[in-house]
């Protein structure tokens, strides 16, 4: 009895600490509703199904890989009679219209990758009100009106990158931070994650944080200027390999030793890393989130309970496993944490 009590107390204490940390970290979701399974029996339907996928855009290669995963997974399920895809071209207003168009087609389930978080609330609410279950993927909505949310946390991604960088520098040094598009959800989340992580490393001094629009051109230009401005840059935190690869080029051309630079699973970055041999880390923002989203969608329509929240585990590529991911023969803009079979890769 006593032992049971002790176990219980320790367990409780552990819970409280964890909850406290979680609250402090702002991942409250993990603990309340998010780990829960959602009963989807009311959405069960006999095939054939019509599924709508409202994509935010396919205007860059990450999004193309993401969309391909969705379509690849959909193609594997003969139960899906119709699979409609719309492209909002990065415009939330158009996406709202797209969702309305999809609903007009009488879809049984909506998969949505919102163009901007929060702004697509009315779209998903409308779908749920009509009894169409919604799978949100990649970027979040702030309403509760969805069945499941599949993502890979941008906050975590930024945080892991920053922690790696701080550890690599031994907790001490000057870094610059290069973000994506000011005002874009993923960029801001990654930045927030990084900033929160850096609070634990008082020795790390952020010399400057600038936005580079996820453009390799701007990444290179901004870095070239920052090199002039700061004689000593010990590390570069870049929230994506787009500006990251530009920054590496700038460093290389300035004839500087390349300090640790963070990146992601974009082949360009991996290739540079392999060729130049600097200290790098790639934290993937998995393109296969889309595949998971379709799998969850199938579950829902089969009436199988799904988790309220699915976090797709990001791959962390380090020096040790770099060779497993980098492919010198593949194009620069390929994302290597991919689950696509060879024939589904974008090709001419």
């Amino acid at each position, binding site marked *: 009895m006593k032992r049971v009590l002790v176990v219980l107390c320790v367990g409780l204490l552990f819970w409280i600490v964890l909850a406290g940390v979680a609250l402090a970290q702002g991942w409250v979701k993990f603990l309340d509703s998010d780990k829960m399974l959602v009963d989807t029996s009311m959405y069960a339907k006999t095939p054939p199904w019509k599924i709508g996928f409202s994509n935010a855009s396919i205007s860059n290669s990450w999004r193309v890989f993401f969309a391909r995963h969705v379509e690849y997974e959909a193609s594997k399920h003969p139960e899906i009679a119709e699979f409609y895809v719309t492209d909002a071209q990065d415009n939330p207003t158009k996406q709202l219209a797209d969702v309305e168009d999809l609903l007009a087609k009488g879809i049984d389930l909506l998969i949505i990758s919102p163009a901007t978080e929060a702004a697509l609330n009315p779209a998903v609410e409308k779908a749920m009100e009509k009894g169409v279950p919604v799978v949100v993927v990649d970027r979040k909505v702030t309403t509760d009106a969805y069945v499941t949310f599949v993502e890979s946390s941008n906050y975590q991604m930024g945080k892991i990158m920053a922690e790696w960088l701080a550890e690599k520098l031994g907790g001490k040094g000057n870094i610059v931070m290069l973000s994506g598009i000011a005002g874009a959800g993923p960029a801001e989340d990654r930045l927030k994650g990084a900033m929160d992580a850096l609070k634990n490393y008082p020795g790390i001094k952020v010399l400057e944080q600038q936005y580079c629009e996820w453009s390799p051109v701007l990444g290179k230009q901004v870095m*070239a200027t920052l090199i002039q401005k700061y004689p000593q840059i010990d590390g570069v935190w870049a929230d994506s390999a787009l500006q990251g690869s530009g920054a590496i080029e700038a460093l290389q051309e300035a004839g500087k030793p390349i300090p640790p630079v963070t990146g992601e699973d974009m082949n360009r970055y991996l290739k540079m890393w392999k060729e130049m041999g600097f200290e790098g880390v790639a934290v993937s923002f998995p393109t296969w989130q889309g595949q998971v989203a379709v799998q969850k969608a199938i579950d829902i329509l089969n009436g199988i309970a799904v988790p309220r929240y699915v976090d797709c585990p990001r791959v962390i590529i380090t020096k040790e496993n770099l060779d497993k991911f980098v492919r010198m023969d593949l194009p620069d803009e390929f994302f290597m944490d991919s689950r696509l079979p060879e024939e589904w890769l974008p090709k*001419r």
Partner: protein
Amino acid sequence: MLVALFVVAGIVSPIFYRPQNIFNVLQQASALGVVSVGQTLVILSGGIDLSIASIMATSCVFAAALMAGKNSMVIPITLFCLAIGALAGFLNGIITTRRNAPPFIVTLGTALIFQGIRFVYTKGAPFGSIPSWLRFLGRGGIGFVPASVIIFLFLALVMEAILQRSAYGRKIYAVGDNKVAALYSGINVPNIILSVYALSGIFAAFGGLVLAGYLGFGDNWAGKGYELDAIAAVVVGGTSLAGGEGGMGGTVVGVLLITILSNIVLLAGLPYQFQQIVKGLVVAAAVIFYSFVKVSGERR
């Protein structure tokens, strides 16, 4: 004005004067410079070209894909990319002249079409790589002078010479000043306009190659925003949006001004948002300045 900015830049940050920084600024200015040369021609003839950025990216993507890292392919594919640019410009020109449609909207449409074409071609994920020769064009240098800026200044100089000294150049001014009078003087106005758009397309494609060289791979959005920056540079350089007035000299200054501006905003450590605000203010101020100079000139 440029001198003033140089002084201000130095006050904001002495780093500005470092040779390496000047090198960077010049290098960063050159792709914008090349496309602004084309934009100047279009604006002088009384038009406007908003398809520049799209042509740049298309050329960049095609260069990477078709050169595939092989130096032997640089020259043929460069020609191919310039041909694509010329084609886009030709489309702009032919519709603007034959159908007398507003260039603003026609070039916007062309931009969309070529955006679609490059994505369809690459399926959204650009492939291939940029061979070392082209890379030298984009990032190499002779001593402290970037190769790309030599090309930019050379092109600007050649076009200025053509504008001021050749029959063709004079015709561009005439068309920009008064299309009807140019027509009545036996100038083949549609052909001039057509050629100007085609040239702008070629310059845009070339700018895309410079950027490809700078960047090292095919990027679907290389040159994003350059169409408006180029217009801003041309206008800041004193070329009138109404056409028929201005020249390359001003454009070179305008391009440097816009680039230096970004540079000193960064050197001053101002956040990105300020860069936009400052750019907006400077462009507005420059144009207000010109209009005052003009008005006081008239009242002289």
